[in-house]
């Protein structure tokens, strides 16, 4: 559900409109870049609906994909050197460890408020603007009572 209530109210009035830039006001689609995620969990704390939450496991492949110049990238390179075989998937994290945890993102629960993207320190949560097609799915019957486009201009000062 990437549209907020304000977004719905606006697009009910505007067939064919869609924001060009991401804005929390009308809604947005969250795109996660796992390779940038540092697992701090700020998004999970700030998320109103629980769409982002801290997982119980960690996917070491996140480290391999991390930017080479970052600390996590260096850690990934080191891991690659010492590892006997490539990890197959997420590994379970002991309860006491807080940092190495993958964020679970559940799109179904997302409200499109963009809070996670605002609080993310690593740009791992990106807010992408909603597209016209996505809006069409959500807002079924747009009302359009305005003047038809292309009406010719008329003299100023004439009203009623």
């Amino acid at each position: 559900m990437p549209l907020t209530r304000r977004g719905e109210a606006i697009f009910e009035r505007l067939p064919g409109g869609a924001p060009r830039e991401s804005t929390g006001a009308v809604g947005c689609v969250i795109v996660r870049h796992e390779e940038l995620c540092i697992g701090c969990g700020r998004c999970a704390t700030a998320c109103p609906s629980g769409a982002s939450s801290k997982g119980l496991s960690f996917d070491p492949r996140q480290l391999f994909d991390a930017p080479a110049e970052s600390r996590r990238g260096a850690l990934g390179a080191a891991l690659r050197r010492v590892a006997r075989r490539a990890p197959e998937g997420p590994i379970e994290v002991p309860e006491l460890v807080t940092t190495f945890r993958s964020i679970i993102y559940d799109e179904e629960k997302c409200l499109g408020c963009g809070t996670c993207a605002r609080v993310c320190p690593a740009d791992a949560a990106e807010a992408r603007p909603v597209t016209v097609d996505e809006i069409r799915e959500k807002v079924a019957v747009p009302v359009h009572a305005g003047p038809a486009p292309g009406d010719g201009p008329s003299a100023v000062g004439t009203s009623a």
Partner: protein
Amino acid sequence: MTTTANDTPRPVVMLCECAGTMKNLDFDELAMFAGTKAEVLRDAKWCSRNGQARILELMEAGYGRQLVFAGCSQDFVNRRFQRLLQRGLTLEVADIREGCAWVHSDDTAIVTDKAVRIVDAALRYPTKPADALAHENKVDSVLVIGGGVAGTQAAAELAQMGHTVELVERRPFLGGLAARIGTVFPTNDCGQCLPTTDAQAGTRKCFHRNVAIDNPNLHIWRRATVESVAGKPGDFEVSLRRLPNIVTGDCINCGTCETVCEVANAEGNAKAIYAEFYDGRVHRSVDLETCTFCGACAEQCPTEAIDFTQSPELATVHAGAILTAVGCDTAPEHLISHLGYGHDGVVTQTELAELMDDWEEQSWLGQQPAQEVVMIQCAGSRDRRRLPYCSRLCCMIALKHAMRLRLLFPEMKVTICYLELRAAGVGYESWYLDARRAGVEFLRGTPSTVQFDEHGKPVIEVEDMTSAAKRLLRPDLVVLSTGMVPAADTERVAGVLNVDLDEDGFIEILDRKNRATETTQEGVFVAGSAAGPKALVEVNTEASAVASEIHNFLTSAGRRMQPPSEVVAADCVGCDTCMTMCPFSAITLEERPAGVPRPAEVKDDGKLAVIDPEACHACGICAANCPEMAIVHNLGDDDLFGRLEVMIEGVEKPIVGFYCRECAGAAISLAGMRHDPYPENVRLIGLPCLGRVSALHIVEAARLGAAGVFLAGCAEERCQYRTGDASAVEQTELAGELLEQAEMSVPLDLWHLCAVDRHSVGRRIRHFAAHVADPDGVPVDQPVASAAACEGGDGCGRPSR
């Protein structure tokens, strides 16, 4: 969102003909329309003595009835009916004069139709009355942070006014920086004068002679710091931490303790028990960092004034208002090390002042072969890599010291290297001329570094810009006119008090033009150099100003409060949008209490936005930005949609103008007073702040058929609600983009107005209307003084060409 219940009596419309000045209005038709919805009372002039008496009767008889006044603008009503409003009159104003009759043509039918709509909108979608006061009950005490001249003077004045004052000073002695620097400009005497009490002769009295500081209302907390602040304006709860002074008030300054003490302090220039500045109360203090607590001094003290049993204490005080007077410091060493600071023979102006004040040091100065002194202005200041700002004091300090040096040592050659000399103040220019006459050399040009020869003597290479020649100076002493930086504790104190800092790190003042003693937090004030380096003359003025300001705050009935915005808990998802947008920090995210409704999609521990009604200024910025539309402003979305519909439905090519009732409102109503005409299809919607406008409202206007929408707010960067303008700009851009994509584009414009724009706003509206009528023929980006739109004539405000 009408508040009329079934059993409330019919509203009353007071129709004012304004002494027959609205000839293009058919009042009979207006009355007939209003009569269908309300009881109509007509008067030729409601603001006359008789009219006001009628209103008074109405207030007494018709208690609880909605009163709509159809006549002049809100601003005019506020002044004309001021006394009745103070007695509790609540009016919904329908501006049919400046907003309609006075600015429109003689076409009675059209003008009356617009007036009917204005009255209809006011009747059907009224705003809530502002009938409450914020911060009504206030604790009659003040916390003053900082015992420099600003803080002590304000504290003494406030204590004399009868308020309880808690004066908190980090160091053991009062007096601040002024106590250290000796003489000050522009009077060339000490900087320690404070206001006197009635009990003293009306002469200047310095710290140690002044009994005003002994006022029983004034409590001095030495060596104390503010740990935390809770509560709200009018009743802050402040936690203080105080270190013991060890030396009590029984000290008679015999000096025995210092002779027996065998421990030196960290700098090695004083004993562990020491005297710094006598502020009239305490002579000595103990340096707790170095003291070994051997107790030798306590044994020898003849008056038993040394008490080592004291221990640090935590205390809580209540304060109605807080004054920050934390002052400033001289620039730290790393900002002036490029000019040789740290070497022998290089000192700052503050150090020079101490050298000159102390005769022993002075004789050192005299005994040295100090034949030549060079002062370097703007040392570390006005430099993007160091201090980007001008500290404003250094020029005058240099002049003062140069003249003093010439007086003390007539043989000495004193040169001031400067770029610009900023000597603007009462009597400052004559000081500059005096310094020239005293033989001080002024060299235009400042060196980028100071070098040293093999004997360690400074060598300065500087370009003299006046003669365009390189000069080589070999002074005995280099004096750096360093800038000022915020006092060390400023950032922490600002954090504790929740006030903003400006780009230079000083306490931000609320308004650079006319609210120099208020901070961004209500009930927290600022004075002196805490808000930027200031000369003593300004510090004294500000200290007195802030004392009266705080007195006003503490004794006033309270701020008249617009009905605060409310959060609909069932819709609030607990994102942080409103909290980050609120310019008054009135919104917090809190745990959702049990039993409070919650939207289905919100997680179990989801937060709830809570608005502090007394901190809320009802600007509507949060309501315009809430993604879930969960905040209801006193002019709700439904009211705004309703007003829009009433005003433009069925009108041919209407133009909607949203304007804030602050600066833009002043410009528009003043333009109305000037009878500056604009077309009748322009329909104005007044808002408390332009930040109330959301993209949704603009889209709704377009949907209802608006052919153009303009927004008018306060002057740029001068929004009365700080961020409303920025929010409106953003929302307008979003609306424009969305309308364009939906191929429903209408001309959109946003103007920044203030009262002086009364001359141009009419022309602006006319031009915008002309652009809307003919988008290709009339460009939108030349609103003012365009020949195509300006018809000239009486209402134009410009001389006709």
